[in-house]
């Protein structure tokens, strides 16, 4: 069971100094150590972006997939080897922009895996264009006049679409992020973890300070009710704000919004998935019955 140190690669992170990705990397390594997988028992899939660049830095059975397509690649892994816990690392452009359809359908599919979304509200790797979660009116190279769409509400969509574990955290709080990761890793079903991840290089709006002043933990407030989809949905709406909102008029909840245990996962419903599917291909399958049926 690899330790944090053993999870590191010779290839060292190239993220910008102060990038929230460092914190998420730290939290993930610690969470994996704590949950205690052996190298053989988990696999990590990355999308493309600065978030995805993490692929070079984590020692594991890894797959650096296409931009926007980490979830289906991960699903293919999860549905052919029940012995693997699959972790999926995506950016916000990656996961909610180009990958939005897979996000939607993964939520309703409840394949057991963990989706971690590096939500820096910007396209980092391609030099700072607006992302689907960029705040309205934010000016970027692709929206010099300001973003005019409403941002994606990942928590709301996940809850609407049947995800069984929906959480959000802020990378600046590494210990909290790690604890959310651990809960997600232990969840039996599809776990969505959206992480506010400051991008000091391109996103001069949603900075560490900006988040730190605004986030609060859901479980610290009265009425905490992660069993209720409606409550979770209502809380998800409070993320909407404008660029200039004051910290106290714009509080951003983090924590577990919704959790439903005991729902059978997709894998649970596939009796043929009792073992890794490569075992089916050790000798020719007997098709005589199938052929006779066509006689």
């Amino acid at each position, binding site marked *: 069971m690899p330790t944090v140190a053993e999870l590191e*690669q010779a*290839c060292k992170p*190239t993220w910008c100094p102060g990038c929230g990705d460092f914190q998420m990397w730290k939290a993930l390594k610690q969470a994996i150590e704590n949950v205690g997988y052996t*190298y*053989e028992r988990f*696999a990590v*899939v990355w999308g*493309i972006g600065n978030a995805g*660049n993490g*692929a*070079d830095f984590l*020692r*594991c*059975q*890894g*797959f*650096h*997939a*296409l931009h926007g*397509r980490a979830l*289906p*690649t*991960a*699903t*293919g*892994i*999860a*549905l*052919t*080897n029940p*012995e*693997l816990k699959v972790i999926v690392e995506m950016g916000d452009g990656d996961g909610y922009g180009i990958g939005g*359809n*897979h996000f*939607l*359908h993964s939520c309703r599919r409840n394949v057991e895996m963990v989706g971690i979304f590096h939500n820096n509200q910007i396209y980092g790797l391609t030099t700072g264009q607006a992302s689907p979660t960029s705040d309205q009116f934010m000016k970027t190279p692709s929206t010099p006049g300001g973003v005019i769409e409403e941002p994606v509400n990942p928590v709301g969509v996940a809850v609407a679409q049947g995800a069984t574990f929906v959480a959000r955290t802020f990378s600046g709080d590494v210990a909290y992020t790690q604890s959310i990761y651990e809960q997600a890793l232990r969840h039996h079903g599809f776990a969505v973890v959206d992480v506010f991840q400051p991008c000091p290089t391109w996103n001069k709006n949603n900075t560490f300070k900006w988040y730190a002043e605004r986030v609060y933990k859901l479980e610290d407030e009265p009425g905490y009710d992660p069993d209720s989809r409606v409550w979770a949905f209502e809380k998800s709406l409070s993320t909407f704000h404008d660029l200039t909102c004051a910290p106290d008029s714009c509080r951003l909840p983090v924590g577990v919004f919704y959790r439903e245990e005991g729902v059978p996962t997709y894998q649970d419903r*596939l009796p*043929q*998935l009792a073992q*890794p*599917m*490569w*075992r*089916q*291909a*050790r*000798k*020719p*399958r*007997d*098709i*005589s019955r*199938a*052929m*006779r049926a*066509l*006689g």
Partner: protein
Amino acid sequence: MAQLGERGTPDISIRIGGPAGAGIKAAGQSLARTFMREGLWTMDLTEYPSLIRGGHNVITVRVGPKPFFSHAVDVDILIALDRLTVEKDGPSLVEGGAVVYDPASVEAATLPSHARGVPVQLDEIAKRNGGVIMRNTVAMAAALALLRFPLEPFESALHAQFDSKSAEVAEGNVRAAREGHAEAWKHADDFPLRLSPVPGAPERVLVDGNDAVCLGALAAGIGFYAAYPMTPASTLLHYMARHEGDGVVVKHVEDEIAAMNMVVGAAFTGARAMCATSGGGFSLMAEAFGLAGVTESAVVVGVFSRPGPATGMPTWTEQGDLQFVIHAAQGEFPRVVLAPGDRDDAFHLTWQAFNLADRLQTPVVLLGDSYLSDNRQSVLPFETARVTIDRGETITEGEVSDYLRYRDTPDGISPRAIPGVKGAEQLVNSYEHDEYGWGQEGERAEVRVQQDEKRMRKMELARTLAPAPVAFGPLEADVSIVSFGSTKGPIRDAMDELAAEGVSANFLQVVTCWPFPAREVSGFLAVAKRSLVVENNYTGQLEQLIRQECLMEPDDRLHRYDGRAFTYAQIAEKAREMVRRPARELTGVTR
């Protein structure tokens, strides 16, 4: 116009036509199955528009005591369930052919003048035995009567089909069949064609191309199949889904992009994985197809073409995607494209595709089309004894050390250790990468060159592993045909027809379209008296490849791009025409 019984071939063709939703296809298929079980050979051709109801649906069953390779050219017996069928299909009837029709809905005066009318109270008989739904039963029994074919086999087929549902329905159908048979029998004396069971014939199965592909995939040990429905590939999904119990995870996913990416993920775990679609879905798969190329994933992708571009003609056929599958996706990477020509090819090339994918660790395309996918033929059961499993250098169990997923090797193959194997930490990467898989290193010029050359080197191995072209007919011939895919059947029938007339033809079937078998095709063309490339498309894509790879041009070419498959008659006619022309008029420039 052909005369009844005048065709060179000793077979008979029966067409059933009517609106969509009338159960035409099922009727034709149960007729075919009845014949097959009685020792005859059959081939269907289904034609229908992209509609659930209405429109004009047709199935034509070709049946005879000797095997043949393609669908019927014209019609001996036409079962017209409506007026439209008489209008549309009347012209296909041979001189003296019979039209089975219901005088209650079709007026005798509307029948073509060269037809023999066989009025049968289809509706009334059906209704009095259980409902209009039985019209097909009545009509088929009538057709059997015209041929003086015994009714018993059909009766047992009806029992087999309906007994489990309701004895009453079964009985009703049998009664309806008997009445139809009796009514048509009155006209059988006037009708010269006869068909009899062939006792002791070997066991056969009735399969379309998609069935054959699925059987091949099952035999190969497929563990994961993902798809989004798309005609003509949808029935693969249905078939595979029905066989989940055999140990396959089958997913109907949100789109083709997901299907292809999932399959690449599944290959990562060592599962034998496949997806299939038509050209439109493959367009969406292109990026992830390239992902399979750069990640060196062993995947099989079925592309079953219909006429494009875009939505095109969903229920019709074309060979318009050959160049597309050879060039799909950005960048350059090794791939293999196999084109089955018939159901037997479809079965054997499918399990071979899985072996090739594993040996080469690269995507393998099975390229077919609606003509092959949709139409059933009676064939001998596939030789499952030939099936082998070759997983190449895939390590599924145990332990590896100093593992490098993309190790540079002489043949380009890097041993693949799948997750779960101890020591198999690795990075499978969509970026260019070094031997370990690191993307950062892949930016270095020398690493790029190493990995690009390593991958492309696999094409050399592919040349030695992929099936060679298959030659049919005499070594020397009046006309030499080159083609690929589903034109094989019509070409083989045309060769037989030509041979009967004293015209000799031979045929080189390009089975592996990529890597292109330039040596074999060049050799074939070099000695050809008159060479002809036959393609079911407009631009001549196979010919383009021949020009590119062989620097040769055939003497002539035959294209069809109206959404319909070639008939053997059309190909034979083209060959005859070439033979009639003096050789100097042929356009070939290289020899």
